[in-house]
């Protein structure tokens, strides 16, 4: 039994492929003229400031909401949880787009209501948007940790004479600090790698500047900036890996039954967040749809999005099968699986830069759909791997043994038992990859073949041209898709999104 499982060579190949972007960036960056200059320093400052503000915002919104959704027994609990988690499913550029054109002088709010609002743009605008779309990370990690805490400690504190608020502050919060930090770091990663929001808000972060360099044919400079961004990402990932999970034994969790008016008051105070993150974009896109119709939009954009994303989903799941198999088979395989997770930490803009260079070296690939699909696969493969692996892991190992004992060869046991039982995981994984790819913006912008317009890139063109009214249809379609993604994510056992992100931490 010392010979390697059959999936190892394939998994190793896929793992090596996942490392490809960094290798490419290194070789590319060697031609860069500047290692670091004052302009760079400003970009670094902006990026870090955005990250820090996002963390603060996400924690301020996320932690109270986590307590609220975990402990307060209110009617339609599940509904409120879904509503409050929903911003996670929306790409933040949708929100950035809507808010940028709603607020400020000449914004839609002034047009419709006649009230002049301060503009939302720049650092503060980006931080606001980021916080609104990343707080669910903090909320979800903190909430799951809160739910596993034993209520008796809080009850003990209260019988010892501490008020509820003080008990939560002194007895509960210190025990979930790690989970808050884990969620905050996920928010930080998102803030670091997101392209759309700072780009729309006009904030020069790494992602935006990389795109500018790329457009100015400064590919090696873009690569250098990408590497610098990867260093920060790597740092955050490293800190994440050092945060240990919960060590307490789970117990019966606390349930609070506040008076009706208190419940309503708490819900009411959460409403501005829901309004800003979900209702406002929906309202704005609907307004534009009513006012300007579907002008300029072609069905082929949606078709292109779906086509490329479908291919990515298919390839990702096919590649995920050997990786998941290897991960379950042994330690070396587990390491290979870890390596494929690397792509998830690579910002889309960085992946785009690397693969543009690959395309330039291999003209057969340049400007083809294949290269775009490859970018999607490299980025979102972990979603498929995580989903396939968790379902496969949950299969009782006794079943395969039972099949073997009944006379089935390993291959037969795999095709008749493991594969059918993993099918659900594969479909769920494919769906996650599909939805992520549909909404991906920067890599699509950089790698899409000429004239290949998708929902996301069309929104970008509209933004660049200033015909924002035309964003109505693609905007609404993207929101709708995100809703489907959310349902997938939260329905039943579908927690792959969270297991994936948690895997990155461990």
């Amino acid at each position, binding site marked *: *039994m010392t010979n390697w499982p059959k999936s190892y060579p394939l998994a190793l190949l896929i793992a090596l492929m996942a490392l490809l972007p960094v290798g490419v960036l290194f070789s590319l960056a060697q031609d860069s003229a500047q290692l670091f200059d004052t302009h760079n320093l400003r970009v670094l400052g902006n990026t870090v400031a955005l990250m820090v503000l996002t963390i603060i915002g996400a924690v301020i919104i996320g932690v109270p909401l986590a307590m609220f959704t975990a402990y307060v027994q209110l009617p339609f609990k599940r509904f409120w949880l879904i509503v409050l988690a929903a911003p996670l499913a929306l790409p933040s550029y949708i929100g950035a787009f809507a808010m940028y054109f709603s607020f400020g002088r000449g914004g839609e709010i002034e047009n419709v209501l006649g009230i002049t609002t301060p503009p939302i743009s720049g650092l503060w605008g980006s931080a606001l948007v980021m916080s609104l779309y990343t707080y669910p990370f903090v909320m979800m990690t903190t909430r799951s940790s809160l739910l596993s805490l034993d209520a008796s400690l809080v009850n003990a504190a209260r019988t010892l004479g501490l008020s509820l608020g003080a008990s939560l502050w002194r007895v509960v919060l210190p025990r979930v600090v790690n989970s808050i930090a884990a969620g905050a770091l996920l928010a930080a990663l998102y803030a670091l790698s997101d392209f759309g929001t700072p780009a729309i808000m006009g904030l020069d972060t790494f992602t935006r500047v990389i795109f500018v360099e790329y457009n100015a044919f400064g590919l090696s400079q873009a690569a250098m900036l990408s590497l610098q961004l990867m260093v920060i990402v790597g740092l955050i990932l490293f800190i994440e890996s050092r945060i240990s999970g919960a060590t307490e034994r789970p117990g019966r969790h606390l349930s609070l039954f506040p008076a009706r008016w208190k419940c309503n008051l708490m819900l009411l105070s959460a409403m501005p967040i829901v309004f800003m993150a979900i209702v406002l974009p929906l309202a704005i896109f609907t307004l534009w749809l009513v006012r300007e119709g579907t002008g300029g939009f072609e069905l082929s954009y949606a078709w292109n999005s779906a086509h490329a994303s479908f291919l990515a989903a298919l390839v990702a799941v096919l590649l995920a099968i050997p990786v998941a198999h290897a991960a379950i088979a042994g330690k070396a395989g587990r390491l290979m699986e870890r390596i494929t997770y690397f792509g998830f930490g690579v910002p889309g803009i960085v992946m785009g830069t690397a693969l543009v260079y690959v395309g330039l070296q291999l003209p057969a690939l340049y400007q083809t759909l294949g290269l775009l699909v490859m970018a999607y696969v490299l980025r979102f493969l972990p979603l498929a791997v995580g989903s396939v692996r968790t379902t496969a892991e949950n299969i*009782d190992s*006794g*079943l395969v*043994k*039972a*099949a*073997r*004992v*009944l*006379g*089935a*060869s*390993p291959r037969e046991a795999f095709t*008749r*038992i493991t594969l*059918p*039982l993993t099918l659900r995981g594969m479909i769920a994984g494919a769906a996650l990859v599909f939805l992520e790819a549909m909404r991906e913006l920067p890599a699509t912008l950089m790698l899409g073949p000429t004239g290949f317009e998708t929902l996301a890139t069309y929104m970008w063109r509209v933004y660049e041209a200033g015909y924002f009214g035309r964003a109505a249809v693609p905007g609404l379609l993207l929101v709708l898709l995100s809703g489907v993604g959310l349902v997938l994510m939260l329905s039943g056992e579908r927690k792959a999104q969270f297991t994936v992100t948690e895997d990155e931490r461990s």
Partner: protein
Amino acid sequence: MLSVSNLSVNYGSTRVVDKLNLELGQDEILMLVGPTGCGKTTILQALAGLIPLSEGEIRLGKWTSTPAKHVPPEKRNVGMVFQDFALFPHLTVQQNVCFRLKDTSLADHWLTLLGLDNFRDVKPASLSGGQKQRVALARTLAHEPAFVLLDEPLSNLDAALKDSLRWEIRDALKKAGVPAIWVTHDQEEALSVGDRIGILNKGVLEQLDTPESCYSTPNSRFVARFMGEASFLKAQFDNSENNVDNTVITDIGNVPGTPLQNAHGDVDLLVRPDDLSLDASHASPNGTVDWVRYEGESRLYAVTHDNGSQLKVRVSHENAIKPGERAHMQLITTHPLAVFPREA
């Protein structure tokens, strides 16, 4: 015929099973018992080919498995009934039982025999525990194994079901005429169902014998204690030829004995609770009741004899004596009792 010689299994550097030897008769049911962690399940997994051997060999008809030459499970023609049933959740009962069968007549036979006809098209998730275990058994027997391994088949079922299913499984195995190794931690189950019993202690087979022998003449104090309530009474035994009928002399009566481990002189006599009588109204009591446990049809007493030995006595429930009261104990058995050398 299945034969196992010198079978050893290591997990890393720890030896879990040490030099196991056994042979299985034509349609014999061998019960393997032992406390948790004694290596029972490991032995089954090794016999099924699910884990590699470290030493020794397993032979059955055409194949021989050794550490160097591992025979995969599917080539062994072995049947296995799992503790958690291991029914394929995506297949119906019928599809489970017919898993690798082209001819389904045998599957029909066992489904009918085990009373599963009405559940053929049902998925395992909607079956009760007892039904699941019957399906698992039907699946195993329908594939005509050369021998069957049962890994604590009743441990996930409730007590009432255990009793009846125990006999159902035994009957089915006997009808199929296949030898079986049945692992359990329940000595009562082992005594009642098995043709032979093997008692394991820390990976070593301490005794392999009929239920009667294991119970009445255990090889060791471990086996004696594991097979049921055991007390040890200080006694005298003369192993010379003068003692023709092997009489053991004790303070509460003389009984025939079977000397073990060359016991003689000062010895310990193995006494089971039903080998004794207890009488509170006797004129000359010889012991004091320490505690009493009411068991419904009987009462179990712990009584310390005036010589210092504490003995457990099981008597009819009508016989109510309170802790602290005095009573008279007497050996009433006529069959030979096991005699161990006095423990230091």
